[in-house]
């Protein structure tokens, strides 16, 4: 009996496009009235909820703008989008791109947090026309490249941090 119920629920889910992985990228503006530490809270909530819902992604927070890429089952991503549109901690949300993908790009992270460091603060300007960062002026490619480049730099930084720690071990330390 149980297997019948399961297949019935799977069938209904298929009617919603549950078999399609969708990657959605959006930009929005942070609400300046937010409390201190709100970005950290937003991130923690996203990580918990996403893990439960099979969503992976990356979040960039830069100069009071959010750039986010989320991926998961098509109806699940659309359900999240409806919530994001209503979330008052940010505003002016714009969907930039929404694509079917064969595999996830952020499968290792329920939400990878990318915050530009002191060293790569200028990176955003590499993809901008003006002297001020404004993702609303950026094309789909520029936004996607910025997220990907920040992600790569963070991976390189993490790798070199590990190497530095290993180098610091004195020669007589066998632990």
């Amino acid at each position, binding site marked *: 009996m149980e297997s019948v119920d399961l297949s019935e629920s799977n069938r209904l889910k298929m009617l*919603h496009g549950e078999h399609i992985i969708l990657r*959605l990228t959006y930009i929005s503006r942070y609400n300046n009235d937010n409390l201190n530490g709100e970005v950290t809270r937003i991130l923690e909530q996203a990580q918990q909820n996403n893990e439960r819902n099979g969503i992976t992604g990356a979040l960039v927070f830069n100069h009071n703008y959010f750039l986010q890429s989320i991926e998961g089952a098509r109806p699940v991503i659309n359900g999240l*989008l409806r919530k994001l*549109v209503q979330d008052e901690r940010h505003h002016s949300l714009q*969907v930039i791109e929404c*694509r*079917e993908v064969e595999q996830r790009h952020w499968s290792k992270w329920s939400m990878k947090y990318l915050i530009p460091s002191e060293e790569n603060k200028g990176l955003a300007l590499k993809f901008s026309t003006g002297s001020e960062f404004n993702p609303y002026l950026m094309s789909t490619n520029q936004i996607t490249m910025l997220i990907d480049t920040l992600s790569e730099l963070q991976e390189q930084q993490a790798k070199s941090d590990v190497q530095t720690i290993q180098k610091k071990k004195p020669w007589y330390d066998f632990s």
Partner: protein
Amino acid sequence: MNSVTTDAHILISMTYASRANPNVSAKDFNEILQQAQINNAANGITGMLTFNKDYFLQTIEGPRAQINRLLYSLISDERHHDLQIIDTRELKHREWSKWSMNYASPTEENAAIYLKYSTTIGFNPYLLNAESAHGLMNELSAQKG
């Protein structure tokens, strides 16, 4: 708010599926279409709509900020529910530039086109992927001439 209106240089298209609310009548469908045609023409939006009594499948194209503004009002429109974006992408040029809102509904003449892109008999856009939704709308439009 300047920052959100200055992206008029970016052209995007958005395709979505939704379910018609049960109390939506044939008269409502005509109204939805006419309203879309008037509003879209004023906002530089073009597109294609295909529907039956249960479902909508629509592509809209125009400036990124305008398309997103329209998305907000579509999400809260009570004549349909369960809106699902199937595809959103930046365009080099419009595909529906000749129509503020082109449209087609299943008829005997176009039944074979619907079936060409469907696993089932009967139109259900939730079963379509981005590519087949795109192909379906293109062929429906081509047949109308």
